[in-house]
């Protein structure tokens, strides 16, 4: 029997009561900083002994308060995120860092700052391309972020501390990748539902504690005998975010989810921040260039004067080819959160790419509420019938 306070059990406990640990840390004198998106460079918070805490919404909580601040035809994730904030769920936060990773993030940031009173609030502007001047601008944005953090904490962010924080977060990335290695066998040693809980737990903990939890989970999963059952399909989920285990459980009713390409899955952990002479260079490159979110404008050749659709698809989705092969994936679900425009524009092209690889896929839209789960289940079941 696994120890209740360790590994998967511990991850589930944290997942179910995310703010508890943050509140304990705050009571112990730590400052807790919220962030709504994985594009916020957490290394800079960690280096200043601040605890990053991802502010999420809740599919089970009806949006009521956010209606006075955001329109209904708007990113449901940001709506529920703000709704929870307006209901006081995050009142323990000492500050909030937002980032221009997409229009809804940017526009919600302005509203958030106006309606929720945090002692510290910072917005990081983020270019859309990965051109050299865009990287330079983004680095300057991170430098401004450093200045406001220093002013808030009264501490200097030294390159040495930042490098140490980068190493800790890189370790976390490596551990998450190791965790995903455990989904390669058939059946996988860990389910997609469990991974959602682990990742969300990581986003509620200081990085060192998160790494400790990951090590426990990996060790436990490697030796477990009660892992997931083998199911007819091995799925890739591609989405902006899947951060609720009830959603993931729907896919896993008749399939094994072996790869969750979303920011509640492997997306923020796939790469690693390079240790550069000026640590901000490594962070700039990682956060603007390396994270494979649909929000970034990518091309086969930067500034290209000729375009080839196949090469274009390769530059945008090429990272999936290896994953599909190595994880022996036989179906993909392209899960769109309604009103998420960057991902919505991407859907037909991604389907073209997967068709070219011969991988069956389906595009399903939902609105990130409990009410959307039943129709989601019906559509998933229909897809699984076609591929099994």
């Amino acid at each position, binding site marked *: 029997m696994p120890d209740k306070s360790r590994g998967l059990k511990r991850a589930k406990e944290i997942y179910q009561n995310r703010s508890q640990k943050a509140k304990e840390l705050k009571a112990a004198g730590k400052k807790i900083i919220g962030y709504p998106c994985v594009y916020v460079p957490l290394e800079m918070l960690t280096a200043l002994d601040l605890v990053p805490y991802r502010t999420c919404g809740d599919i089970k909580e009806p949006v009521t308060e956010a209606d006075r601040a955001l329109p209904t035809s708007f990113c449901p994730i940001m709506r529920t995120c703000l709704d929870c904030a307006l209901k006081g769920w995050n009142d323990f936060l000492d500050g909030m860092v937002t980032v221009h990773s997409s229009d809804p993030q940017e526009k919600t940031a302005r509203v958030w700052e106006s309606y929720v009173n945090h002692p510290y609030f910072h917005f990081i502007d983020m270019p859309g391309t990965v051109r*050299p001047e865009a990287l330079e601008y983004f680095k300057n944005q991170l430098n401004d972020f450093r200045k406001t953090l220093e002013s808030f904490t009264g501490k200097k962010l030294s390159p040495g501390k930042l490098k140490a924080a980068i190493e800790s977060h890189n370790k976390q990335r490596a551990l998450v990748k190791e965790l995903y290695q455990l989904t390669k066998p058939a059946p996988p040693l860990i389910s997609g539902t469990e991974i959602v809980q682990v990742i969300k737990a990581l986003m509620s903990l200081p990085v060192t504690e998160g790494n400790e939890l990951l090590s426990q989970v990996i060790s436990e999963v490697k030796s477990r005998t009660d892992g997931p059952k083998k199911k007819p399909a091995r799925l890739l989920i591609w989405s902006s975010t899947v951060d609720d285990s009830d959603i993931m459980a729907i896919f896993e009713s008749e399939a094994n989810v072996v790869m969750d390409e979303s920011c509640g899955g492997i997306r923020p952990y796939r790469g690693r921040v390079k240790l550069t002479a000026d640590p901000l260079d490594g962070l700039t490159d990682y956060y603007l260039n390396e994270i494979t979110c649909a929000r970034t404008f990518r091309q086969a050749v930067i500034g290209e004067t*000729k375009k080839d659709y196949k090469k274009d698809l390769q530059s945008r989705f090429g990272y999936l080819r290896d994953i599909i092969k190595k994880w022996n994936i036989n179906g993909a679900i392209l899960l769109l959160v309604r009103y998420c*425009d960057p991902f919505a524009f991407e859907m037909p092209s991604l389907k073209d790419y997967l068709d070219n690889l011969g991988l069956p896929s389906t595009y399903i839209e939902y609105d990130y509420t409990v009410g959307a789960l039943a129709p989601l289940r019906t559509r998933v079941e229909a897809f699984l019938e076609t591929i099994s």
Partner: protein
Amino acid sequence: MVTEEKKKVISRLKSMYPLRAKVNETYLKSAEAIKAGKPAVWAMLNFYYGDPILKAMDVEVVYPENYGAVLAATGVAQRYLDQSDADGFPTHLCGYSRASLGYTSRMMKDLKGKIPPEAPFGGMPKPIFLMASAAICDARYKWFQALGRYMDVPVWSLEAPSPGNKEFFIEGNYQRMVELGMKHLRDFVAFVERMLGKKMDWDKLDETVNLMIEINRVWFEANELRKAKPCPVHSRDFWSAMPAALFLAGDLKDSLQLYQNAYQEVKDRVNSHAGAILEEKYRLVFAELPPWHSLGLFDRLAERGWNFVVESFGYRPPIPLDLSKVSDPLEKITKFSLQFFAGYYNDAKKQNVLGGAFAYPYLKYAREWKCDGALLHPLISCRSASTHLPYVSNMLMEQLKVPSLNVEGDIVDLRLFDPEDVVAKAEPFEETMEHYRKVRRQEGFGW
């Protein structure tokens, strides 16, 4: 007869017609020029970052967003929206983008590159490249990227910084935004040169930029005159006249003359106390993009005495900025483009309105144009033109005691907008405006 009488409810500016015609002519002239072998470029609204460069390089530019409005206004949009849906694009995407995706799908897949015969104003021919922009709505560059499904045409995505409310004031930030713009535009010029196989004429670019700035200054001043009571220009004239400035349509010297004519006509109306509608009972601000397919609604509201005196932050000329001492045209372009939102930040900060560039302008408009109410039009398919509207509504009430009427709709898809619903709500909203007029007077507001 009935139709004629309805048209007279709003007294349209005579000087507006040639400005509106200019945009239509631009489509026709572009189609002819392209038939004669000139290259075409598709561009999106970019707040002038790229337009003057294309203009100076003598490229025929068509704007799918503006064309989306044309398709909606001429009733042709629906088949393209349906085609976009059939190709797998979600129905809640931007109406302009859906119209152009469907149009391009039809042109390239069904008609093998030929312009669809039903396309108004000669249609949009296949471009040699696409100029996307991140300004205000950054999902748009994904739209142009998505057009790659139908045509192998390179895309340039223009960068446009979008600073936070307080972060705008961090020391050196403005200059860094200018540097980003200048470096980026320098590369863009090189890209355009490669695509066209010719060099930029920098003197011509400078002249183009200066004309662009002057056109917008005159257009800005004309709109300032609308603060007069009664307001001499209705929003319908603003929307008809603004594309020539916003999209740098046709010959710019000619445009400047037309805007100067408009300014003079507005000034004459102010001097003679001539209003845009027969009896101005209520002065309203409109946000953001209008229902292009149902503009007749405004005539019906004008019959009730509703005069729309100020509108559409995203389409308005920037607050004038003296750039006469700037010699580099790319620096001028960048500073002018940044001014679209940067022009409001200082005032917003003073008033402690964190909504910054998107929400604050409406407070300024309501205060300075002395509005009784706001008609807010959140769009089901446009986050960028809608997200700030609940905040705008709250701030108008909290700070100025100006009530808002919210009506959901869409810019292109007429199935998502119900003009009858607005008319049904008009009478109770008039009572609300009357009530808050009294409240404002009691609380010492100036109107």
